[in-house]
C-alpha cells in the first residue's frame, strides 16, 4: 500500500484552566489514495481534533501531517472540509455558495463558463440542480448537507474531510445521504476521512474503520479492514454474516474494551442520537455557567 496521506506521531495539548490537557498522543495513520476511512470513538475523545489537524485548522503540538510527501500545516482547499452543521453562507444562494468555492480555487485556471459548468456539475452530482436559487434557510437539513458536500467536492480536494456529516439528520434522510455518498465515491474515488457515531454507517461506507481509544491521551485503538465488495447494498448486507461480524467488532470495541467512563473527564456533552434536527452547536453553546447561576439563585431564595 502506497501512502498518500500520513498522520505521524500526532499529539496535541491544549492549555486549560486546570493546566495543560493532552487530548491526543501518538496518533499514527497511513492512508492510501482513494481510501475511505471512518473515525469512530466516544464523544470527546478527540476525533474532531484529529480532523481539524489534518485540515490545518488546528496545529499539532507534536508530529505532523504529510500529504503527497510534503508536510501540511495550513488550511487549504486541497483538504476540503464538510462541517457537521453545513456551514453554508446564509446570505448566498445554493449556487453562489458552491460558486464562491469554485471561483476561489479555479479563478485562475478555468474560464467563467467552465466555472459555471463545474458549479452546476457538482450540484447535479448531489442532486441539488433543482434548487440553485434557494437560500440555505429555504432548504431542508439534508439538502444543506448535500450542498456542503458539493462545495467540498467542487474544490477537487486531494482529501475530503467530513466531521459527522449526517449527524444532525433524521435516520431516513441519513440513509439517502449515505447512498448518495457511495454513488459519488464510486464515481470519483476520493480519499475520504469521515467521523461518525453510527456503526452501520461506518461499516457500510468504509474501507477501514479507525477506532479511537478514550481521551485524554487518546490514540488509534484498533483498525478494522472492511472487505465487503462494492457496490454495497444495505438491504442485502443486512443478513450478511461478514457485515454483521464487522458491526459486532466495532460495537465490542466501543462498549467492551473502551466503554465510556462513568464520569467523563472532558465536557459532559449530550449527543443527539436519533432524529434530532437541532444543530449540535446549540447544545455546545449552552453556557457552562448556567448551573452555578441557578444554584446561586436557589440559595438566595432560601436565604
Amino acid at each position, binding site marked *: 500500500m502506497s501512502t498518500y496521506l500520513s498522520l505521524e506521531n500526532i499529539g496535541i495539548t491544549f492549555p486549560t484552566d486546570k493546566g495543560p490537557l493532552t487530548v491526543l498522543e501518538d496518533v499514527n495513520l497511513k492512508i492510501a489514495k482513494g481510501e475511505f476511512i471512518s473515525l469512530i470513538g466516544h464523544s470527546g475523545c478527540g476525533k474532531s481534533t484529529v480532523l481539524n489537524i489534518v485540515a490545518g485548522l488546528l496545529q499539532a503540538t507534536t508530529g505532523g501531517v504529510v500529504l503527497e510527501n510534503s508536510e501540511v500545516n495550513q488550511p487549504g*482547499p486541497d483538504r476540503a472540509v464538510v462541517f457537521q452543521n453545513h*456551514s453554508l*453562507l446564509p*446570505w448566498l444562494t445554493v449556487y453562489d455558495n458552491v460558486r*464562491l*468555492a469554485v471561483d476561489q*480555487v479555479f479563478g485562475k485556471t478555468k474560464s467563467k463558463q467552465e466555472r459555471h459548468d463545474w458549479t452546476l456539475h457538482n450540484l447535479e452530482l448531489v442532486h441539488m440542480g433543482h434548487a440553485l436559487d434557494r437560500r440555505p434557510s429555504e432548504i431542508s437539513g439534508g439538502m444543506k448537507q448535500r450542498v456542503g458536500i458539493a462545495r467540498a467536492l467542487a474544490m477537487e480536494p486531494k482529501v475530503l474531510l467530513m466531521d459527522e456529516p449526517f449527524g444532525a439528520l433524521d435516520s431516513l434522510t441519513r440513509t439517502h445521504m449515505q447512498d448518495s455518498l457511495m454513488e459519488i465515491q464510486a464515481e470519483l474515488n476520493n480519499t475520504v476521512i469521515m467521523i461518525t457515531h453510527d456503526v452501520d454507517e461506518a461499516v457500510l461506507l468504509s474501507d477501514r474503520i479507525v477506532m479511537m481509544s478514550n481521551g485524554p491521551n487518546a490514540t488509534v485503538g484498533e483498525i478494522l479492514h472492511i472487505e465487503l465488495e462494492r457496490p454495497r447494498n444495505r438491504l442485502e448486507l443486512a443478513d450478511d454474516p461478514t457485515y454483521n461480524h464487522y458491526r459486532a467488532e466495532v460495537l465490542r470495541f466501543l462498549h467492551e474494551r473502551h466503554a465510556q467512563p462513568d464520569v467523563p473527564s472532558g465536557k459532559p456533552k449530550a449527543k443527539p442520537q436519533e432524529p434530532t434536527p437541532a444543530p449540535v*452547536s446549540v447544545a455546545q453553546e449552552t453556557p457552562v455557567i448556567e448551573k452555578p447561576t441557578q444554584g446561586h439563585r436557589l440559595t438566595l431564595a432560601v436565604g
Partner: protein
Amino acid sequence: MSAKILSPQHTFQAAWIDQFHAFCTSDALLKSGRKLAAALVIPAMALALFLILWGGLASRVETSLGTLPGPGKVWEQTQVLYQEHLTEREKAAAFYERQEQRNAAKLEKDPNAEVKVRPYTGKPTFIDQIFTSLGTVTTGFLIASIIAIPIGIICGLSATLYQALNPIIQIFKPVSPLAWLPIVTMVVSAVYVSDDPMFAKSFVTSAITVTLCCIWPTIINTTVGVSGIDKDLINVSRVLRLGWFTKTVKIVLPSAMPMIFAGLRLSLGIGWMVLIAAEMLAQNPGLGKFVWDEFQNGSSDSLARIMVAVLVIGFIGFLLDRAMLMLQRAVSWDKSSTIR
C-alpha cells in the same frame, strides 16, 4: 343575507342592522378590521387624547411670554412660518430679477461692462434652517460612518487591535460632543483657512461635532457584530484561503450587517439630537439657531414658533430613523427577518 332582508319578521331598520351586523362579523372583515383598528384607530385616539390634554393643560401655564401655546396656536404659527418662507422666496426672486435687468441695461450701453451677480442676503427662513440642519447631520453622519465601520471591522477581527483601541473608545464614548464643541471651533478656525471656502466654518464645526458623537456607537456595534461571526464560517474562509477583501465582503460584512445597522441608527439618532444642541450653543445656522433666536426674540408668538420647531425636529428624527430602516431592508440579505 338577502333572505334575511326579505324575511317578514324584520322591519327595514332591523334588517339594516342585521345586515350591518353580519357584515361586521364576517370573519375576514373582522380580521382586517381589527388590523385597521390596531394600525389606525388606536394611534389616532391616542393622538386626539394627547392634543386635548395639551390644549387643556398648556393654557394653565403662565410664562413671561404669555401662556404656553396650545395645538391651535402652534398650527397657526406653522402656517405663518411657511408663509414667511414663501414671502422671502418671492423677495429673493424679485431681487434677482431686478439685478438681471440692471445688468442687462448696463450691457446694452457698454457690451464690455463688468457685471456682478450678487447673492441675495435675506434672513434664512424656518424651512431653510431645516435643510441646513439636515445637510449638516447627513455630512457628519456619513463621515462618521466611513471612519467607524472600517475601525469596527478591524477591531472585530483582531483581538490585539481591539485591546489596543478599546480603552480609547470607552473613554471617549461617554463624552458629550458639546464638550468638544469649543475645541472643534478653535481647531476649525485655525486650520480651515481659505479665501473662498467651499463650506462655511459654522457648517464644518457642526458637522465635525456630529461626527464625534456618531462614531462611537457604530464602532462598538460593528465590533460586536464582526467578532460574533459563526466560527464555522471563518473556518470555511480559512479552508478556501479567501483573501481579506473577499472574506470581508462575502462573510464578515453580511453577517455583521444587522449589528452595523443597529449602530448606525443609534448614531444617527444621537447625531440629530446633538446637532440641535450644538447649533443653539454655537449659534451655527440650523434649527437649533432658529430655536435660540426665537427664545431671544421673546415675542408673544415665540413659544408657539419654538413648539413648531420642536415638533419638526421630532418628526425629522423619526423620518431619519425610518430612512435607515428602509436602507437596512434594501441591503439586508434576510428579507424575512423582522427589523424594527
